[in-house]
Structures are given as C-alpha cells and as structure tokens.
C-alpha cells in the first residue's frame, strides 16, 4: 500500500542514453514534485506540478522533461545522460493548502551514469 511509489529503485546506464523514472501516488494529492539529492547530500527541487500544470522548473537542463499524464502520476524522462546526472531522484506529493502537513516522498531512484 505504498503512498508514493517510484520505479526503478536503481538505474545504471551509460552516458548518452535516454532513461525514464516513473512516479505514482495514491494519496489523492494535487501536487507532485521531483527532487534531486546530489553527492553533497543536498535535496534540491527540480520540478513541481499542480493539477498536471508545471509550476516550478528550477533551472533544470532541458534534457530533463517531466510529464504528468494525470494528477496521480509524474514521470521524469532524461535525454543524453551525463556523468553529472548521477544522483538519487526523489518523487514527492502534497495537497495544496496544507503546507504544515509536509510532503510524502517516495523511496528514491539511485541513478548511476557510467
């Protein structure tokens, strides 16, 4: 009964490849996010979507393209992968108007580009 699930959990791929990470939430939340945790352990926002509309794109290279087919899904497609893309990517969701309840995060996807 996972609230926010992302797949795959681990992804190892070569430079230049294209890959996707999928995220689904069953909490009925209207906002979803992608966060990146880099080697220095900072958790940084990449994108946020509210009711399938892009709200925040935090200066992410356009090789990263999020897609939200409905409010319960937010997928992340990455083109032409680079070594610097290696990180842990977390999907999260929340309800607008309840900032005090925080976000619910998925367990993360560890992407390694070789």
């Amino acid at each position, binding site marked *: 009964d996972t609230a926010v699930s992302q797949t795959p959990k681990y992804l190892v791929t070569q430079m230049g490849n294209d890959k996707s990470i999928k995220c689904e939430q069953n909490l009925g939340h209207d906002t979803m996010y992608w966060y990146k945790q880099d080697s*220095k352990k900072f958790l940084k926002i990449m994108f946020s979507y509210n009711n399938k509309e892009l709200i925040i794109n935090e200066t992410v290279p356009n090789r990263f393209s999020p897609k939200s087919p409905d409010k319960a899904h937010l997928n992340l497609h990455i083109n032409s992968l680079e070594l610097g893309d290696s990180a842990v990517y977390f999907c999260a969701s929340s309800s607008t108007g309840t*900032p005090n309840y*925080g976000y619910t995060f998925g367990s*993360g996807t560890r992407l390694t580009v070789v």
Partner: protein
Amino acid sequence: DQQVKQNSPSLSVQEGRISILNCDYTNSMFDYFLWYKKYPAEGPTFLISISSIKDKNEDGRFTVFLNKSAKHLSLHIVPSQPGDSAVYFCAASGGAGGSNYKLTFGKGTLLTVNP
C-alpha cells in the same frame, strides 16, 4: 545561496538524553518550517512542522522551537531512542513566485543515539 543551513553535520547522544538539532535560515519570507527524518535507502519522512506565527509546536517526544528574530529553529527529541538514529533535514516553504510549491532543504544532520 543556501537559504536553509544546518551547520552540524552530525550529532551523537546517549539513549534517554535530549537531542537538539539546529537550523538557521536567511529568507524572512518563509512561512512554514518542517523537519524530516531520513533512513538510508528510504525517502525523507515528515516529522513535525511549525508555522511562522508560532514559536513552539509539540508532538509527543518531538518539539520544534522557532525564533523568528534570530531566524533560527531547533528540534528537540526527548527522550532520545536508538531508533531515532537517522539524518534529520530542516526545510522551509513560502514566499513569492510559486515558493509555496517547493521546500528548501538544509543539508541534514546525522543523529546517532547510542544505547
């Protein structure tokens, strides 16, 4: 430009004692502050939050204190238990331009509670 700072990368305490984790911020427009707990290979888990109009919020063993004039907040865990050993992230939200749609995180503090 780190708007949320956790200056202690690690903290070690004895079981049963108080753990105090600190966080400083620079953006006076933040209106909610949150603490998350993270175990290895898992996503962060929401722990407790506080609105900028309050100075204290308590939930069981966890209490968050906010000092707006000092732009400082702290998380107190009493009594500390070995299961509390994890990385604790301070986060903030609010401000203009869609800032309610993102959390800005600190770098985290690794808490180790020794039996």
